[in-house]
Every structure is written in structure tokens, then in C-alpha cells.
């Protein structure tokens, strides 16, 4: 579903530190459930933005759902649902209107039924006429996920989906995500919370723009050395 080889992107950050994202090889198969963790500035968001086609890169091959980036970006982006770190909702539109807008943008047919189904999935059907600016943080995030799902993507990519969200909404968000995983959607998310990372079947640890570790969650948890991904992570990064 996702294949990256020899990807390189470099830039100077505003703090004047040069940053290089350097990924030799990364393959994610259809239906995989993957979390990306790493320190602040390790390249998690940059990698996610490249996968979603919204960040340019200097060299390397990036293929999403069979489409090559950046050349086939338009085709690729129909296959990807992306939840960015910043809310991308229109605050003066209602919940329904936001969904309707995104549906029109992607030329979705039979949109009314689709919208209502998705609003039911994310638990916002009762709030469909509320302006999105009047939603709580957790509800906004759930609406954003519904907007990302409107084009029935093959890959759902979420950049820190639970930032600013209360514990109950956090559970509800993972309930939505994992329903999609059960339906064999490919799901990739970044997080700073290790208990969230642990939910995924595969974890990628990034550091200084590189993939430091890439493993099956159960392999770490079943080997009786580390009790949690947090322990493993702390051990690896501090080394």
C-alpha cells in the first residue's frame, strides 16, 4: 500500500538546525495498523506529510496505493484520508455542512447517506446541526476523522489524533479507528503517548530523521524483557 525507498528531505529549521529526513526503506502492506513514535522533531510529522503528498521531498521513491508521488498526487490523494495536527474544519459551518463540503470537494456521489452513516459511526449524528466552532476538542477531532473518511480512503493517516482530547473521547477515537482496522483499512498514526502506540500491530520509532526501530508490537511485549512499549522506547532512545 505504501512503499518508500531512499527518501531524503532536508531543510534548515527556524532554530537554524539543519534537519534531514532519511528513510532507506519503508513498506506498509494493505490492512496494517501502524503507529509512529519518537522525540519532538524526530521527523514523525514530516514523514506523515510526505506520505499524504503535501510535503515535497528532494529524492527517493514514494508510492501510495500504486501511485507515484509527486507525479500522481491527484490520484493518490483520493486514496488517503488525512487528519492533520491542526483542525481543518470550517468553524462557521455546521457538522453536516463541513462533511458536505468535503464530500463535494472530492466529488462523492450519494453523499447524504454516506455523511449520515459516518456521523453515526463517530457518534455525532445528534450534533449534525451544531456549528463546528461550538464542539468540544474531542468532537472536533471526531468530525475531522469523519471528514477524512468521506472519500472511503484505502489508507487513513492521523497525525497525533488525540492531542487536546479528554480520556473518554480518546477511547471513542480509537474505537472508530479500530473499527476501520477491522475492516482492513490501512491505518497509520503518530502519537506521543506510548499506551496509544502500543495499540497498533506495528510500531515505528523515529529519531533524528531516521527510522530507529520498526517492529511488531507483540514481538516486544511477548519477549518478557520489556513490560511496555514505553519501557522499550525509553531504553532505545536513551541509549
Amino acid at each position, binding site marked *: 500500500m505504501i512503499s518508500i525507498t531512499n527518501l531524503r528531505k532536508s531543510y534548515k529549521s527556524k*532554530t537554524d538546525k539543519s534537519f534531514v529526513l532519511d528513510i532507506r526503506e519503508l513498506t506498509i502492506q494493505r490492512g496494517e495498523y501502524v503507529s509512529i513514535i519518537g522525540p*519532538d522533531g524526530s521527523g514523525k510529522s514530516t514523514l506523515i506529510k510526505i506520505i499524504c503528498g503535501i510535503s515535497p521531498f528532494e529524492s527517493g521513491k514514494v508510492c501510495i496505493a500504486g501511485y507515484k508521488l509527486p507525479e500522481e498526487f491527484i490520484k493518490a490523494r483520493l486514496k488517503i484520508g488525512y487528519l492533520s495536527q491542526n483542525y481543518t474544519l470550517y468553524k462557521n459551518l455546521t457538522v453536516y455542512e463541513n462533511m458536505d463540503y468535503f464530500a463535494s470537494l472530492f466529488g462523492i456521489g450519494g453523499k447524504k447517506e454516506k455523511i449520515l452513516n459516518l456521523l453515526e459511526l463517530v457518534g455525532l449524528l445528534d450534533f449534525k446541526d451544531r456549528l463546528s466552532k461550538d464542539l468540544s476538542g474531542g468532537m472536533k477531532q471526531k468530525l475531522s476523522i469523519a471528514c477524512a473518511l468521506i472519500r472511503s480512503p484505502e489508507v487513513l493517516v492521523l497525525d497525533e489524533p488525540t492531542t487536546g482530547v479528554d480520556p473518554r473521547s480518546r477511547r471513542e477515537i480509537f474505537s472508530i479507528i479500530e473499527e476501520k482496522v477491522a475492516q482492513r483499512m490501512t491505518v497509520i498514526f503518530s502519537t*506521543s503517548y506510548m499506551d496509544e502506540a502500543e495499540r497498533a500491530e506495528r510500531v515505528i520509532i523515529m529519531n533524528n530523521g531516521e527510522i530507529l526501530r520498526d517492529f511488531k508490537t507483540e514481538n516486544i511485549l511477548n519477549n518478557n524483557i520489556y513490560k511496555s512499549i*514505553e519501557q522499550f522506547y525509553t531504553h532505545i532512545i536513551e541509549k
Partner: protein
Amino acid sequence: MEIISVKSLTKRFGNFTAVDNISFGLKPLTINGFLGPNGAGKTTTIKMICGLLRPDEGSIFIENIDVIENPEKAREKMGYMSQNFSLYPDLTARENILFFADLYKIKKSERDNRYAELTDELNLHEYQNTLTSDLPLGIRQRVALASAVIHHPVLLFLDEPTSGVDPISRMKFFDFIRKYINSHKATAIVSTHFLTEAAHCNEIFLFNRGKIILSGQPAEIIQNFRYNIFETKTSLLTGEIKNILNNSEGIIEFYIFGKRVRIITEEDIDIQQISVRTGIDISNISVVAPSFEDVFISLTND
């Protein structure tokens, strides 16, 4: 002696009682977690303690200062850090920290010493002359912290101080807080949604609908949790599971994660009953130790 003592505190907005007759005291050398859903009364309580909002009833003392009578004097004892609002984006890290020092009227010589000390302790040297808007999140949090403690407060408010950073940065942050409260015989209040932050606290205060419904050490709270938690794998469809569980008595809450279901029940329901009620084979059900999140979610149930 307690650093802060709150008695019978009440605040109403029209017909809505935001804070409903709460009392608590915080001792020095403690980190205290204020937890609760949105609208539970945490922020209103903190605003009253800071002297920014006048309570309808009750009293607040910080050391011996009456906050309601003398809010400005009380504020000299407090430091406040919120990752979102406490820094000026168009000032550098250095300018931000010194600005707060000047607000608290710290003498220049003392100010410069304190500034040097904090840049050392919080590892801020290389970022001193960068605009705070250009700093990565983790560094911004450290600058906000330096600004909050420049005047040696004994009561520190931290509002979701480490949201969005990795466990190592979070651990270092709380190491600093721990050292600070030890050296200043201070106390800290951490207001948070994040149970990973709560794990760093000595004492937890769980707010719901204007009241403190539970307080105690994190381990104690989990131990006293009186509900059972089960996890099961099932091939039933989401709608079918919902149907079964919504119609079963004694089930407090359940969450469906694809093919896994997490069920929180009353304490008198055992694994056998869950099996009978759901029709799921007992070998597919396991008893799960409660997490702090389970406690939070089941006790703040609407």
C-alpha cells in the same frame, strides 16, 4: 503547614453551579493532579485560587494570605504555566523569561543570576535568542516553565504542561518539577486530561460536576476501584455487540475496538455471567486490571 487551604468554595454562574462546596488542602513537597472532564469545575477552581474570579462562598488561603481579600499579594506566591497561552510568540525565549521577571519586579542583579540558573537547569542555552513561535513544542514548554518559576513561587499551576511530547521529555520535565518543589518547599497543581501526566502526581483530585468526587494516591485509587473489567474478542458485528451489551444489566460502559470489546461492569458480575449474557465463549474473555483511564471514565460517567 499547608501551602494552600480551600474551604467550602462555591461559584455559581446564573443557575449553574460550576464549583459546589469543595474543600481541600495541599501540603508542601507534593504534586497534585486535578483531573476531570470539560466543565467539571477544575478551571473555575484554579481561577478562584489565582484570585481572578471571586467565589460566591468559601475561603482560600495561600500560606497566611487571604486570596479573596488580597489577591495581588497572593499572586506573588504563585507561578502559572499553560503551554498554550503563557508565552509571547514575537519575543525570544530570553525576552519572554525576563519579561516575567520584570512583572514580578525582581531586581536586575538577582534577575540575571536566576535567569542563568534556569537556562542551565532547563537546558535552554542554544534557544535563548530564538523567537518562541519558532521553537519546537518541547522547548517552548521549558521556556514557559522557566517564566513561571523565575520569582520562586511556592504554588505552581501547570496546565497540561507536557501534552504532545514524548515520555523522555515528560520525565525530564517532572524531574525538574520534583527538584523545584523540594528545594522551594513548594506544591504543584497539574491540571490535565492526560493520565500519563497524572501518573507523576502524589495525589489525585477527580472533579465531576463541580465537586471533588475522589481523591487519593494514584495507586490507592486504582486499588479501590470497585468495578470489573473484561476484554473479549468476538466476530460479532458492532451493531450486534451494542445490542447485547446495551440490554444487559450491570454493565457500566463498553468500548468496541474492531474485534475487541472492553467491558466495565458492576463488581458483582463475574466472567461467567459475562459469557452467559453475551453468548461469548468463556475462553475468549479475560479479566483485565483497571487502568487509570478506566477509573476516570467510569467515575465521570454522565
